[in-house]
């Protein structure tokens, strides 16, 4: 019940309303200059004519988008049809990033919870424990992971030694390995934001729920999750979005047999296709999709904030 006396203190009460400009100026300046301008340049590139083997010719065209959405057969003379190749690549990448996000959430949430419920002095230590591995370069970590899970690697050999399996589990070059790699690449990006939210959680709420005979899991679902939701959403964004464009894990652990969004774009700039406008167009389509999702989230958030 939000009666007249019950309105949460409006933001201006803490005095930041008049500071919006100065507080946001550094963000707008830095990202505006060093990200928006380059991205606008790429947006323009996506409408230019490709220069053979890299580069652009300043002739406006929709060819790159046409290539993405429309096919006319291998030789370009069949009737136009919807091109499914790239849509499928997108779908596969979204599916894969989504799975990785769920995996990170399923394991990252309990980890974050566990850390947030340690004594205050040791929480920082646990956080560092999660991030220390990331002082070693991702490529090295991924290659080592591959070493561990290969057919004659330590994991399979020890499983065989204790008789749990008869032959090696084929892990390398499977989707499972890719998931493991993505999980390994992005786990802290899930744990830390959730930790920041859970650490703030008032456990008196859980106690109250327990007093009312709510089960542990019902409390988690009904009381805890709504409160720590911002952390979970932040974590999911930080895992899902970079996973969409990732190609180290898919290539090294998955065998690079099919394009992902990341490797498709990479191929246009660094591969023999050298089609910058098409690479730019794929990036623009990806950005548009992510932006729509993020703005829907922001809108929901705004509505929540002004309710």
């Amino acid at each position, binding site marked *: 019940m939000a009666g007249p006396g019950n309105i949460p203190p409006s*933001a201006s009460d803490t005095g930041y309303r008049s500071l919006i400009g100065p507080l946001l100026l550094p*963000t707008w300046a830095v990202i505006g200059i060093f*990200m928006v301008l380059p991205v606008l340049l790429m947006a323009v590139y996506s409408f230019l004519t490709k220069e053979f083997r890299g580069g652009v010719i300043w002739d406006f065209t929709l060819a790159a988008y046409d290539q993405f959405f429309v096919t006319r057969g291998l030789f370009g003379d069949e009737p136009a049809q919807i091109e499914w190749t790239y849509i499928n690549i997108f779908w596969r990448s979204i599916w894969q990033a989504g799975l990785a996000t769920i995996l990170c959430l399923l394991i990252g949430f309990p980890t974050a919870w566990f850390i947030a419920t340690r004594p205050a002095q040791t929480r920082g230590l646990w956080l*560092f424990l999660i991030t220390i591995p990331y002082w070693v370069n*991702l*490529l090295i970590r991924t290659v080592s992971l591959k070493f561990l899970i290969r057919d004659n690697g330590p994991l399979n050999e020890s499983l065989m030694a204790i008789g749990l399996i008869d032959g090696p589990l084929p892990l390398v070059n499977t989707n499972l390995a890719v998931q493991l790699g993505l999980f390994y690449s992005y*786990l802290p990006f899930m744990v830390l934001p959730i*930790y920041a939210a859970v650490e703030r959680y008032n456990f008196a709420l859980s106690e109250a729920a327990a007093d009312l005979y709510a089960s542990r899991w019902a409390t988690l679902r009904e009381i805890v999750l709504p409160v720590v939701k911002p952390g979970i959403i932040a974590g999911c964004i930080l895992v899902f979005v970079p996973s969409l464009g990732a190609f180290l894990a898919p290539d090294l652990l998955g065998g690079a047999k099919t394009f992902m969004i990341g490797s498709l774009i990479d191929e246009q700039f660094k591969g023999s296709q050298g089609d910058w406008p098409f690479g730019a167009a794929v990036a623009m389509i990806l*950005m548009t999709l992510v932006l729509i999702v993020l703005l829907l989230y922001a809108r929901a958030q705004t509505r929540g904030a002004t309710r």
Partner: protein
Amino acid sequence: MKGVRYYPGFLPLTILCLVVLYAPLAVVAVYSFNGSASITEWGGFSLRWYTDVFTGPEAVRFGQAAWNSLTIALIAATTATVIATAAALAMLRAGPFRGRQASFALINLPLMVPEIVIAVATLIFFSTIGLTTGYLTILLAHITFCIPFAYLPIAARLEGVEGTYEQAARDLYATRAQAFRLILLPLLMPGVISGWLLAFIISLDDFIITNFVKGAGMETLPTAIFGSVKQGIKPNIMAISTLMLLVSVLFVTAAYLINRKGRQAPATPGKTT
């Protein structure tokens, strides 16, 4: 009956999490002491690769690269965290305003653009405006892409902190600056630390963008070692990685000790128990 903080299975999952995180590093650490040059065979315990890191032909290059990496990551993460904290205050403490959605999209933009696109576009941009590529261009690029990684944990934390604490302080005639420094910032700290850590590791790890915007001969650790990792990790790279882990552990220990000393002061608010 166990307390409300306890959930069955959460401890095993945390342990599983740590095992997965550290197992590949154990491989790296163990093989950095391998007397043989090959990862497939064990040639007895040896410190030769550590000697190689410090006295080998590439010692200077690796040392310089590690220094560049660490300083860039420190500066970029700190700058990005300050920028992101300011942005979070405006986004979540100033009520609705025009351009809020646009600002939100802007903050997250670096997250949405695939790295290779940022890399090529930024290099073209820098060379268009005549900025010579070098340390500064790497730093600028890093600060930019670190912002969303710092912002999201901070904002997530800030959302959970009610305005009532600050309001109470303001009612007691604290200035806005005092209310921020004494009340809000300590409450915000777990988010700030999380954000800084994410920004730091993201900067430390970056290869694709750095490789494009760095000037000739300006190396960070990832660009210096990438080649010798892609064809299968060389043992000297494993030694460097193990040393980096050691540096990080020293760093953490130091931070912990300093922090403990600081804790002689009364506990910060927000430790709702």
